[in-house]
């Protein structure tokens, strides 16, 4: 199957060796996402290492957290 061998470029090499400690599962990320997003909106300097690390390493969870953040921010900005 050499003809279809996959290729690793620098970007993939960096993704493959990303430091994902401390570990957090996708399910735990989902559980904590609402609280995390509200904390970040209240204080942009807020940090939760496990959440930050997971969201850097998991594009699906990152998309969902980013989306939730924007939706909640939209609600807050339209509060009369």
């Amino acid at each position: 199957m050499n003809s279809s061998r996959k290729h690793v470029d620098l970007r993939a090499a960096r993704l493959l060796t990303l430091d994902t400690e401390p570990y957090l599962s996708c399910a735990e990320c989902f559980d904590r996402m609402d609280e995390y997003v509200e904390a970040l909106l209240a204080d942009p300097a807020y940090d939760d290492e496990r959440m930050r690390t997971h969201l850097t390493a998991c594009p699906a969870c990152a998309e969902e957290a980013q989306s939730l953040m924007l939706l909640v921010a939209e609600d807050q900005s339209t509060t009369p």
Partner: protein
Amino acid sequence: MTLRGPDVHVRSAPAGTRWPEPADWVTALSLPGPEQEEALRSLHTLMLRASHHQVRRMRSALHDLGEDRIVELANEAADDAMMAVLAKLPTFEGRSRFTTWAYKFAIFQCATAVRQYEWQHRDVELDDAVPQVASAPSPDDLAEAGDLASAVCDAMMHVLTPHQRRVTVALLVDEVPIDVLADRLGTTRNALYKTLHDARKRLRAQLVASGHLPAVGPGRP
């Protein structure tokens, strides 16, 4: 990617909404009666708002889908999310606003549905062959790319199991979404992320040992 909040003015009062909503969602949704019916309608409105917000974000993945089908997909996701919220209602602990908590179910359902749609006609190759170094890295990459990429490929052959290779290549080289891969493999997003985490740990350890990576990750003591 670092998640950063948009620059918005944050009020201390609960977020206002454009529809009537109960002060105590859990009670209103739990006790049969007219208030429950009203709360269910309000919850459905919330789910629709979040799922339509999500399809707008992922619109490019649905470029070949007509407007009617996009609306249908968002509505189905909202319905599924509503069921999920009601099933999980007893677990709501009030650590966030109810609306924020409920929104995440619709965003999750809708994002998953869009990714499944995007990949429904695409094959996911599951190959445990060790990948090779890209032959034509971008000019910026030239100095670093060959060395790190070949060390990574080498480590993939020596320290990963065939299953870890299949999963890491599908997720990080072919960029198959994690929920799509979980569906094809009959497993869960959690299980795949754990496989990925363990594989990354093994690769890092090998590359630290060979001097290709510093012993401590950036920003870590």
